[in-house]
């Protein structure tokens, strides 16, 4: 359930990142600090973009960082980070100022979580809200209320 995966300690707002790799690092920190992923998973997420290109920037301004499911992910997890200054992924959907970092333990038990996030992000008012938000609890309530 989204409520379990995306608690408000998985949300960080108005973070500074100097480039896309730094942005993925910063977005992954909540997952690492709360022991949801191994540190190697962060490299995995970055290598994905280096090998396959910035396909993770799946809509204007928003990147869905993720790597291969497997034992670098301890439990299915998701974080959401907004940036003070957007970064470039060399994608047509640049610049990016919202990063969601995502880890799946298994291949497909998290469909409902992704669906909830997708439904949330498809509404421009929600995306604008995220961009301007300063309070994690407000963001969390808005996400789960959706």
């Amino acid at each position, binding site marked *: 359930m989204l409520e379990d995966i995306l608690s408000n300690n998985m949300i960080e707002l108005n973070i500074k990142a100097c480039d896309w790799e730094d942005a993925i690092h910063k977005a992954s920190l909540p997952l690492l600090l709360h022991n949801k992923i191994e540190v190697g998973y962060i490299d995995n997420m970055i290598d994905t973009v280096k090998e396959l290109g910035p396909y*993770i920037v799946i809509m204007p301004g928003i990147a869905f960082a993720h790597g291969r499911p497997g034992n670098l992910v301890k439990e299915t997890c998701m974080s959401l980070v907004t940036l003070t200054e957007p970064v470039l992924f060399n994608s047509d959907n640049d610049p990016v100022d919202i990063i969601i970092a995502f880890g799946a333990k298994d291949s497909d038990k998290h469909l409902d979580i992704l669906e909830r996030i997708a439904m949330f992000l498809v509404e421009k008012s929600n995306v604008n809200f995220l961009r301007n938000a300063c309070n994690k609890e407000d963001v969390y309530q808005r996400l789960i209320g959706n």
Partner: protein
Amino acid sequence: MAKGLKILAVCGFGIGTSLILRMTIEKALKSKDIKAEVINADITTGPSIDCNIVFTSKELAPLLREKMSAHIIEINNFMSKEEVLDKGWDIINEYC
């Protein structure tokens, strides 16, 4: 009606972004009352799947074009039903 139309959404690992694209495709088809099988896969298993149309990102399209005879359609915004219909409509109708 679409007889046996099979559509594939492809991304890097098949656990995240292709699921989202698959959902968008399913919603787009439903809005036009088109029936089709929609599945998702990653870039390694996708090419071996027999299907009619593939939706994917610009970055992954060239690799898929090399390996598959299906129509490959590039989508920029994986949340946009409008883009899926805009770019896919003509080809989808070939199968209807």
